[in-house]
Each structure stands twice: as C-alpha cells, then as structure tokens.
C-alpha cells in the first residue's frame, strides 16, 4: 500500500461531498447515495490501511504555510475514533432520507472530522476540527435554521484554543506533532487549553448544552450526525494528550479536575433525564451522560480507564444511530434502546461503565471518590431510564425517518456484546497502549483482568445472557396498560429553581434609560466616524506623549 493512500480516509468523503454538490441535478437520493458511499469508503479505507500491518503509518505531504506540516498518521487510536465517527454517519446517510445539500455538507464535515483524528499535529487537528464544526453548524442550519444548534462562537473558541495550545507547543517545544512533542512542552497552561477545547468542542457541560438541545429539534436527521462528528473529537484530544505527556498529564490534579468535570456532566445529564417530561427529552440526555462517563474514565490515568472510555465511545456510537431511528416509537424497540443506553447487564455499556469505575476505584484517592459518585450517577441514570419507559413520546414531527427494527437490532447488538467484552477489552488494551505505554502481557480474550479483580466476561455474562434470553422469552410481557398517573420528576435538585431564576435575572439586566446615552453605540460611532480633526490631533498628541515619557 503506497503511503499516499493515507489520504484516502479524508479524500473519499471529501470527493463524495464535492460529487454530491455537482450531481445535485440527479436528485436527493442519488446525492445521498454518493455521500454515503464516500463515508463508507472512508471507513473501509481506514480498516484496509491499518489491518494488514496493524502498526503506525505516517506520511508528510509538506508544509501548508502557517507553521503546519500536512502530516497524516494512522494508528490504532486513529482507527478507533475514525470508525466511531464514520460508521454512524455512514449508516445514517444510508438509511435516512435527506436533502442533497445536507448529504453533501455532512460528507464534507465527515472528511474534516476524519482529518482531525488523522492529523499528526495539534494545529492541523484544530484546523480540521474547526472546519468540521463549521460544516456541522451549516448542515444544521440547512435542515432548520431556527432550531437549536451549537453556538458558532463557542465551537470556534474551542478550536482556536486548541490552535493556541498547538502554537504554544511549537514555540515551547519546536513542534506540535503528537508523537514528537517534548514532554516538557506539555505545560499546565497548554493542557488547560486542550481540555477547554475538548470540553467545549464536545459541548459537555453540567448545564443543558447543545449536546442535549440538539435532540429537541423538530427532526433528528442532522442532529445525530452532528453529535457523531463533534463529540468524539473531545475525547480524542484527551487520549492524544497522554501521548504528548508520555502517558501522563502535566499534574495529577488535572486528572482529578477532568474526571470531576466528567462525572459532573454525567450526573447533571442524569438529573435532567429523571425530570424529563417526555421520552424525547429523556433521550436527549443519554449521550451526554455516556460522554461524561467517557471523560471521567479517560482522565483516570490508567490503561483500564482508557479502554473503558473506548468501550463507552463504542456503545455511544451504536446509540447515536439507534436514538434517531427509534424516535417517536414505543414498545420493545424503545425499551431495548433505553436498556442499551443505561448499561443494563450484560451489555457493552455495562461493561464499559463497570471497567471504568473499577479503574477509578483501583486508582484510589480523589479519583476513587469520583468513582463512587460515578456509581451513584449510574444508578440515578437507571432510575431515569426506568421512569422514561412509560413517559409520553413527546414527538410532534414526522416519524418517517425512524427505523425501529434497525434501531432495535443495533441496541440488541449492544446488549448481547457483554460476553465478548474480553475481546473488546483486548482490542482497547492494544489501542490504549499507544498513548499509555506500559509493560503488561496481552490480556486474555475471555476475561478482563484488573489489579484487584477479574471479570469473567465470557463465562459469567455468557450464561447470564442465555438464561436472561430464555427467561425473558418465557415471561409474561409487560402490561400495556398505561400508568395510573403521570410520573412526576423523581426529585427536584435543591436550589435549581433559584439558580435558573438568578440566571434569568442576570440575563434581564439592562442599562437604566437615564444612563443609556453614556453607552450609546450610535453616539460613539458618530463621534468616531464624524472625521473630527480635534479627535485626530488629540490621538496623535496622546501617542506622542505616550512614547516620549
């Protein structure tokens, strides 16, 4: 395979997006097929390039002109994140009808997101990430302009922060290449900028951010690809930071801070989920909750934590396809998707959450306490999921885009994957080994061995799964009769109302009329733009005094 083939994962969706634009006269379906083919091709290219050698492949295509070398790199981490981005987008492009503009822009955004994870340099990642964010915002705008979407400024701020971190690495260490940056260059300020980019770029806040609000759009056609394209990039940055720091963040307290933020995000999402008035409002909180857990696990600082984060990412990728496809539907498909999302035994999410929390406890100290909060959050999410089963759908838009059978099938895959956790863990172990090198034997394929325990994935979860399948098949189905009364929120967070009221007050603050003239933008503009010589002379005089003092 020639090294230039490394451009394929980016070039294919890029070309597909361009082709979809050019072929728009052929109709929406043809353009969607072209775009989907491009994204499927990208996923295939990633696998095709990596599987034969299963080692890092790099290529440098020269300098771009702003201190960045167009260097591409395919390694196990890149493969994992590329697949987590490309596969859900490919499936959604394949099964959901959409306008040719949306298909084209989503394909282009996928190319940009894939470039962000294939880039060998922090600055190039920031450029590609910002491009992906821009295209995602445009795609959301094309679908419905007045519907909730990420604030452009916030997304650009995130990627500018990453760019700044990159140039700081270049200035401090001479390079911003993930693999070659000196450990000493990864200072605390640089890490803070990277963490800011990771958090803001993924929209993961303890309050209701765009990652949740996107799911309240009339149609979820573009919301799901938007989340798929942007959210994994934040986690990706946390992974690569380990590589830059030779397996460490600059200070242990930074691990604690990121882990605490992650659990706070997951907890807040679970709190909102348990108070959701409709099932639709509930599903808006499923992915932010999982993403919060992924951040927590990635920040634990152990290989086990990174593997857990990858497993949660994988289950999130399955869910991000299932959630829009089951939108507006109830019954078994909704129940399956909800179960897969909350991590019931013995599914993939269950395994990921379990391994991640074990990693937190085995790290001990403050991270152990955060792990304790993580377990409580998991159970809170379980309560919210249980409550959501009988909530009203809350769906007002068309359900034509939904594919309940496919959604249920994907959720079922996530639920029965538990016995294969050992295999998934072994793969994740190999991936995490790239950014967190450690001398350890390759794990067995049937168990997950941690420092203090061994999870017999195949021999415990396998039989459990068979027994569950038989028992549930034999059991009396859930009575379809509606609940006697509407289920209220399980609890109201103390002080939440006051907080919202305070925020509303802050937002409603305005300048008293009698002082408006002091801050009148028009008057200020008039004063500056009138071309008054006095102002000019005063400015020159002031500058002369300033420089001669």
């Amino acid at each position, binding site marked *: 395979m020639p090294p230039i083939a490394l451009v394929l994962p980016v070039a294919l969706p890029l070309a597909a997006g361009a082709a979809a634009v050019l072929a728009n006269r052929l109709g929406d379906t043809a353009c969607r097929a072209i775009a989907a083919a491009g994204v499927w091709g990208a996923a295939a290219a990633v696998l095709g390039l990596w599987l034969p050698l299963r080692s890092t492949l790099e290529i440098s295509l020269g300098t771009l002109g702003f201190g960045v070398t167009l260097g591409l790199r395919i390694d196990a981490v890149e493969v994992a994140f590329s697949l987590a981005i490309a596969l859900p987008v490919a499936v959604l492009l394949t099964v959901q009808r959409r306008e040719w503009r949306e298909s084209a822009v989503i394909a282009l955004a996928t190319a940009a997101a894939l470039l962000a994870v294939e880039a060998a340099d922090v600055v190039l990642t920031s450029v590609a990430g910002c491009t992906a964010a821009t295209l995602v915002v445009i795609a959301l705008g094309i679908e419905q302009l007045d519907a909730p979407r990420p604030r452009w400024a916030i997304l650009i701020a995130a990627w500018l922060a990453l760019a700044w971190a990159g140039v700081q690495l270049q200035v401090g260490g001479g390079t911003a290449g993930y693999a070659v940056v000196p450990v000493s260059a990864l200072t605390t300020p640089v890490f803070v900028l990277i963490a800011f980019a990771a958090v803001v770029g993924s929209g993961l806040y303890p309050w209701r951010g765009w990652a949740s609000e996107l799911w309240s759009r009339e149609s979820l056609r573009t919301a799901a690809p938007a989340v798929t394209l942007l959210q994994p990039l934040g986690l990706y940055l946390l992974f690569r930071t380990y590589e830059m720091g030779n397996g460490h963040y600059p200070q242990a307290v930074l691990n604690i801070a990121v882990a605490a933020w992650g659990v706070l995000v997951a907890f807040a999402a679970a709190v909102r989920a348990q108070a959701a008035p409709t099932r639709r409002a509930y599903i808006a909180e499923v992915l932010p909750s999982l993403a919060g857990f992924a951040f927590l696990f990635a920040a634990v600082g152990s290989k086990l934590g990174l593997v857990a984060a990858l497993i949660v990412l994988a289950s999130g990728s399955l869910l991000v396809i299932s959630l829009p496809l089951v939108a507006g539907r109830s019954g078994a498909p909704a129940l399956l998707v909800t179960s897969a999302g909350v991590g019931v035994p013995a599914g993939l999410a269950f395994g990921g959450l379990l391994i991640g*929390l074990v990693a937190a406890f085995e790290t001990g100290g403050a991270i152990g306490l955060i792990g304790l909060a993580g*377990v409580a959050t998991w159970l809170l999410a379980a*309560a919210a999921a249980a409550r959501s089963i009988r909530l009203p759908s809350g769906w007002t838009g068309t359900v034509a885009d939904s594919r309940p059978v496919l959604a249920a099938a994907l959720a079922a895959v996530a639920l029965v994957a538990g016995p294969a956790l050992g295999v998934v863990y072994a793969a994740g172990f190999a991936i995490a080994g790239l950014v967190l090198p450690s001398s350890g034997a390759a794990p067995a394929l049937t168990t997950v061995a941690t420092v203090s325990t061994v999870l017999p994935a195949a021999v415990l979860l396998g039989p459990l799964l068979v027994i569950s399948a038989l028992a549930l098949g034999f059991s009396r189905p859930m009575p379809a009769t509606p609940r*006697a009364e509407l289920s209220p929120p399980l609890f109201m967070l103390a002080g939440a109302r006051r907080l919202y009221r305070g925020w509303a007050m802050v937002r409603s603050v305005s300048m008293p009329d009698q002082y408006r003239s002091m801050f009148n933008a028009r008057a200020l503009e008039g004063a500056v733009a009138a071309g008054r010589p006095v102002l000019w002379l005063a400015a020159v005089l002031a500058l002369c005094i300033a420089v001669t003092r």
Partner: protein
Amino acid sequence: MTQLIASAISHTIALLLYPGLATIVLLGIAVESLWSAVSRGSEIVPAFRVARPQILHVAVALLAMLAVVQTGAPFNPVPPAERNVIIAVVALGFTAWAELALDTELVATPGLMLVIQACWVLAVLGPAIEPQSLRPQVLGNVLVPALLPVKVASGFLYLLCLPPLLRLWPLAPPADRRARPRFNTARALVWIAYCALFATLFFPPQGDDAGGVARFAGLVAGAALVTILAGALLSRRGAEHARGLYARAVTPYSLLVLALVVGTLIINH
C-alpha cells in the same frame, strides 16, 4: 477450551443453583413470609399458580442472582478473584428501579428512595476506596485500625438503608391501597442478595466448610432479622416518622460517613 467450558458450567451452576436463583428464591420466600407474618401486611405465603412469571419478577431475579454470585458465600463456585462488588451494587441497584420500569404502579417516594440508594452505595463502596480493591472478601477482611471506623460506620449505614431499599417502610406507592396486599415476590427475590452482601462486606470471609456455611447463614439471617425488626419498628411508628427519619437523620449520617471516608483518605496520604 475444556477449562473454559468447565468454568462456564460452574458459573452457570452458581447463577442457577447456589448461591444463585434457587437459593435466593427458597430462602427469600422464607424471609419474606417471616416479614409478612411480623408485619401482618401482605399474604404470608405466595399463591402458587402455574403461569408464566411476570417480566418484572424475571428481571429482578436475573439481577439478584448476578448480585448474589458476587458475595462470599461459602462453596460459591465463582472463584473469589472473579467477584466484584460493583457488579453486586449495580445489579441490586437496578432491581430497585425495575419495578418503576416494568410495573404499572409507581414506586413510593422515588426521590427519597434515590437518596437512600445513594447512601447505600456509599456504605458499600466507601470502604473500598482506601484499600483500592473491589473484591468483596478483601473488603470483609479489612481489619486495619485506620480503616475500621469507616467500615463500622458504613456497616451501620448499610443496615439503616435496608428497610427502605426492601420497601419495608410504611410508605405505600400511590396506586397500592389494597387492604391486604399480595405476597411481594419481587422483594422475596432480593432479600438474600442484600443480606449476603452485607455479611460479605462487613465480616471476615468464611471458609468453605460446614462451619463457614453456618456462620455465613447466621450472618445473613441476622442481617435479615435486624432488617425485619427495623421494618416492623418503622411500620409501627408510621409513614411520617419513617420519612422524617430518613430525610433528617440517615442522610446527615451518610454525610458523616462520607466525611469519615474523605478523612481516612487524607490521613493515609
């Protein structure tokens, strides 16, 4: 491969027979009957009918058997190294909400139930932070003086949380206003899991011999009896008292336990 099959068989036995499904069903029905007799609440024995089980009971049973195989019951076919307290906590935690998901009736005071469940999680996992181990029998074996206060306080908190978790308190769900409620099968299925986990976490592990079995059974029975007595006491005092106790006494106490955990961490580092 043979080893794998043998291991799978032993785990299946653990799940279905001992200490799994069969054990929790038989002993759980016995304990639940005792509670029914003491509380004079629901029917004392279950009305056996040849019918497909409710999905709620199936789900609770599956989760309870997953939890109970993580305990340190003597002769547990699951090797000690393969037991994990988080699995037990999560499985039992899910049982509390299976009812909300799969039953047409609401759970009584779910908000307070959530708080109590969080306290219970603290009681189970708080002592696991400092030893940095999740093996139940390792936690049970912790006798380091520096860690004993946390362990004792957590054990007491665990016992305090059991009545509401098993719904032995007099707070009935809004839709459940029957004069004589039916035998509570769901509760019967989780009695043993909760009590066995208590016996595993807060007492040294018992050996795989007759004495060990007797001691472990005694601990489980003791935990069950204490819980029944506490439940009966709560029922006698009434709903308001129970709500007040758990809202105003147990929650602050759990904060004290948390402070103890944090203090222990700080002292030992």
